[in-house]
């Protein structure tokens, strides 16, 4: 991905990239409006109608509570995925043999379409918050683990040798040698873990749950209610995008300010 710095452009003039980025949502709304005109409001409500539907939904009370529920699930699932993936990634990444043994398993499980395993989660956790949290965390855990592991393996042996000769203890080794080296890659991992946890939570809510925006979406899809579908999709996409922007901003900051390079290959 473009790694060169976006700073240092002409002074005074707003730079093309920033303006372009701000124009993308405008372009999306325009295309959306055109498609709505073409397909008709019964099939695809336009931006204005969707906004009205969201306002109506907030007043009628099917948005706020469910959104809060989905966000809570997402937050807990994301924290679990991030912490578990980070810890296991560090442990496996630092041990050559353990890494060699488990790499193939992590990559293999990651490649299975996780949705088909959903019944297993229902068996174990029953119908409720736990299933959604577990399924979301399961989605986010693997990218976190795989990227963390890979980043730590990229740390040059020379640094580890120096750390050893300086007699750093485990925590010091992590804090002063490994952490600065892998930090920006961890931010990339967190972003992907966030995205996939979010997807996992929505999938779990769609298939079987008692609450959340995914459940409302499932009803709307089953009853063919494009108004509600577009309202929920708009909210979900805004949340997904906002979350991604936070991590993306952090990644860019580290890259530009601290000259770190994130590798987004193979993602």
């Amino acid at each position, binding site marked *: 991905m473009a790694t060169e710095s976006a700073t240092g452009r002409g002074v005074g003039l707003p730079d093309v990239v920033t303006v372009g980025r701000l124009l993308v949502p405008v372009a999306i709304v325009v295309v959306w409006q055109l498609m709505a005109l073409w397909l008709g409001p019964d099939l*695809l409500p336009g931006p204005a109608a969707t906004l009205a539907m969201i306002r109506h939904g907030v007043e009628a009370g099917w948005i706020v509570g469910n959104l809060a529920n989905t966000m809570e699930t997402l937050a807990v699932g994301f924290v679990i995925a991030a912490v578990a993936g980070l810890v296991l990634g560090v442990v496996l990444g630092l041990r050559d043999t353990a890494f060699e043994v488990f790499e193939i398993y992590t990559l293999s499980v990651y490649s299975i379409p996780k949705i088909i395993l959903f019944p297993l989660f229902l068996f174990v956790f029953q119908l409720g918050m736990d299933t959604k949290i577990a399924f979301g965390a399961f989605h986010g855990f693997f990218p976190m683990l795989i990227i963390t592991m890979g980043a730590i393996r990229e740390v040059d042996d020379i640094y580890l040798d120096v750390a050893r000769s300086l007699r750093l203890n485990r925590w010091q080794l992590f804090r002063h040698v490994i952490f600065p080296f892998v930090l920006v890659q961890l931010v990339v991992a967190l972003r992907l873990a966030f995205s996939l946890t979010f997807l996992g939570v929505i999938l779990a809510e769609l298939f079987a749950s008692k609450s959340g925006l995914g459940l409302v*979406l499932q009803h709307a899809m089953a009853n063919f209610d494009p108004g509600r579908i577009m309202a929920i*999709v708009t909210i979900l996409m805004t949340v997904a995008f906002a979350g991604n*922007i936070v991590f993306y901003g952090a990644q860019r900051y580290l890259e530009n300010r601290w000259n770190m390079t994130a590798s987004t290959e193979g993602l």
Partner: protein
Amino acid sequence: MESLDSLLSHRRKVRLTQLGLLAAVVLYLEYITRTGQVNYITLTSPTAMVGTLVDLVRSGTIEPDFVQTATSVFVAFLLAVGTGVPVGWLLWRRQTLYRILDPYLVAWYAMPIFAFYPMLIGIFGLTKTPIILIAYMMGVIAIVVNTANGFEKVRDVYGDVGRSLNLSRVQTFWHIYFPAATPYIFTGLKLGFIYSIVGVLASEFILSDSGLGFRVAYHYRNFQTNEMYAVMLLIALIAISVNLLLLHVEGRLYQRSVSG
């Protein structure tokens, strides 16, 4: 220097440990299901899963669903390659456009694309097109991003060689840039294929009336645990083998590009 012998035996040890772990897990599952420590409606034994799967394959009951799913995956993947590679190339040529779109591209994976299914049904009718389109949208971005990445990785010096040989732009592209970027593009194709599989199966699981993904949901709803696990096993085996095969080819390509 480490001797080749000890290196080989190390690799063998790793392989044996991997097999041992797998065997331990399978045996444990067999044990807890055989001894009735878990309910047979919740979990069936590995031997029962394999047995049922063999029956499903032999009797041909699974075949239409398999063909259905495989066709959708391949059509979605081919569409994603056909559009993703040129668009990725375009983004590499137009760096400003690439930088404008970058934050939007990275957010793509979190998008609940399958939510558009009802509208797609409204447009295309009850055909396979909606599922193929959803899988396409899930697969194409990885190809776009990795293609753009791949061309960016080609060192400037290669382009200089092309100029010094007086190659035309088209020749430079086909003989220098494209081969040099191939491993990275392949990474995109690998991910695109895997995401296409995920897209098709997820759509089938939630909203279809045929296909392997639908089978899992169907057997689940009808408490046919044996059949459900058999189909799950089949999907997992296919996904894992495809992934391992693609990883192998990918490793070869990167190796060749380093040594060549």
